[in-house]
């Protein structure tokens, strides 16, 4: 495998033997990952391979049974989710996770608000936060949401909710961005737009994504890790792994059926 010395040097994220057991079931079983600075990395595999569980372990949504995760050399495994997010590793969810009662603009403003001081100031008017609107609108513009700014987020159509969630994730300007099935449930047109967007936002940061849509992976990702039954069965470029006999076998009767 080509994950040797040279790649380790500029690894943003080093994952060693992470394992998650639910009772006797090993959802994730000793997975190693090395994610290089600036790459777009896909995590693929048939249903139930442990991709989303893997994500949840990286972000601290789930606690590890075993293993270690380092972000730029610093151990982050065991930290709570919010502390990991503050260190620059931020995720989006498979099922759009937004603040439904807020407007689209308020969703963005809330994400931007976090890096400001004075979030415990209960005596101050919220109008102080309107200085964040410039940046918020820029992001909405980037995601084609500008015209929805005043809409209640819960009333957005599905595809727009996804876009909104990615926008709020981007608002934190994360070093490492984890996207959990960014194109799931989308029409062809939206998929093209989101793929373009991911390419655009990946500049200057590292992206790890779980994705079922293989053409999207092929067009977008520098490296691919294939999981099956909680273990890594192949890694490399898309063309390398798609030629791998074990990958073909794992996918037969599932994705390609």
């Amino acid at each position, binding site marked *: 495998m080509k994950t040797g010395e040279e790649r380790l040097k500029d690894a943003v994220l080093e994952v060693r033997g992470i394992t998650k057991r639910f009772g006797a079931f090993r959802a994730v079983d000793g997975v190693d990952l090395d994610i290089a600075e600036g790459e777009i990395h896909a995590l693929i595999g048939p249903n139930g391979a442990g991709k989303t569980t893997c994500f949840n372990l990286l972000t601290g949504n789930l606690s590890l049974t075993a293993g270690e995760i380092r972000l730029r050399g610093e151990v982050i495994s065991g930290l709570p989710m*919010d502390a990991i997010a503050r260190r620059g590793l*931020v995720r989006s969810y498979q099922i759009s996770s937004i603040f439904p009662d*807020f407007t689209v603009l308020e969703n963005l403003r*809330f994400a931007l608000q976090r890096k400001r001081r004075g979030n415990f100031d209960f005596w101050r008017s919220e109008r102080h*936060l*309107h200085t964040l*609107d410039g940046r918020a609108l820029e992001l909405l513009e980037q995601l084609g949401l500008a015209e929805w700014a005043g809409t209640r987020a819960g009333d957005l159509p599905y595809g727009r909710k996804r876009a909104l969630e990615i926008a709020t994730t981007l608002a934190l300007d994360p070093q490492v961005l984890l996207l959990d099935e960014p194109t799931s449930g989308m029409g062809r047109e939206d998929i093209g737009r989101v793929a373009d967007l991911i390419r655009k936002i990946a500049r200057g940061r590292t992206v790890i994504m779980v994705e079922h849509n293989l053409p999207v992976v092929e067009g977008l990702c520098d490296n691919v890790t294939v999981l099956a039954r909680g273990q890594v069965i192949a890694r490399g470029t898309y063309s390398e792994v798609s030629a791998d006999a074990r990958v073909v076998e794992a996918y037969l009767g599932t994705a390609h059926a």
Partner: protein
Amino acid sequence: MSGPDATTMDKPAVSAAASRPAQFLGFTPARAIFFLLFAAFVVVAPALLYPIFLMKVYCFIIFACAYNLLLGYTGLMSFGHAAFFGMGAYLCGYAATRWGLPFELAVLTGTGTAALLGLLFGWIAIRRTGLYFAMITLALAQMVYFVALQAPFTGGENGIQSVPRGSVLGIVDLSSNTALYWTVSIVVLAVLALYNRIVHSPFGRVLRAIRNNPERAMSLGYDVDRFKIAAFTLSAALSGFAASLKTVVFGIATLTDVSTVVSTEVVLINLVGGIGTIFGPVVGSFVILSLEHFLAPYGPWVLLLQGLVFMLFVLVFRQGIVGELQKRLRVGL
């Protein structure tokens, strides 16, 4: 670049302006109207109703605001707010009678005690969510009730009686009901403005986000537990403040203040008024306390009626009176 930017800036700016019009004391126009109507009522009310009853309502409005901050805006259901109310009342009464502290410091003592208790209870209870959170607050409040029953400083069944009213800053003598009424009136109006401000502050925004989607707030890097504890402490402090004021008004702090009745009453007030609304506590307090006041001659029948009111609102008007009103008028109250 400037062309498309300018046009896209326009649209949201318009909608943002529409949702954020001019303000009065931090109130939106619709809320400002409601606020001024209430202020006008406060001015004419003593000519129509018994001032002591009105002051009791005003104290409960403050208490209900404190509770709504937690239930309506943070999404935390506490069944133990009697602990903060009761201890606030006792410590204010004790400070005024035994230590001879003036009005302001006695009220501050009651408020501070409740805040500390809130910090401790919040720290314990936020380890669980939903029903378990509520059960922990209930259990802690029951323990406080037991302490109040046994500890000598509360006066047991007698409570702390003859709490002196004192004066405001040594200038306004509160021994007359009129002076006391206007003092409490100004305080309740100020607290309403403060409550509205808290909800619409950067802090309040975080609380509302936590109620909306706690997991996402956390994944955006907010330390949700710390915000919950802060909200709980603030709510407890305001509850203690309400109780201190009540103690000064009635000159008495008793076991009733620290009993489960108080915990459930504040839930009922907000349910009837409107959970997650600014003026729900005002309307709810008037409705519930009027029921008690005017039906008092019929004794235990009040409880039966309260139970019916409770069921009516849970089954039919879950948004509460103000909640229903703002749905009809399509404006936030």
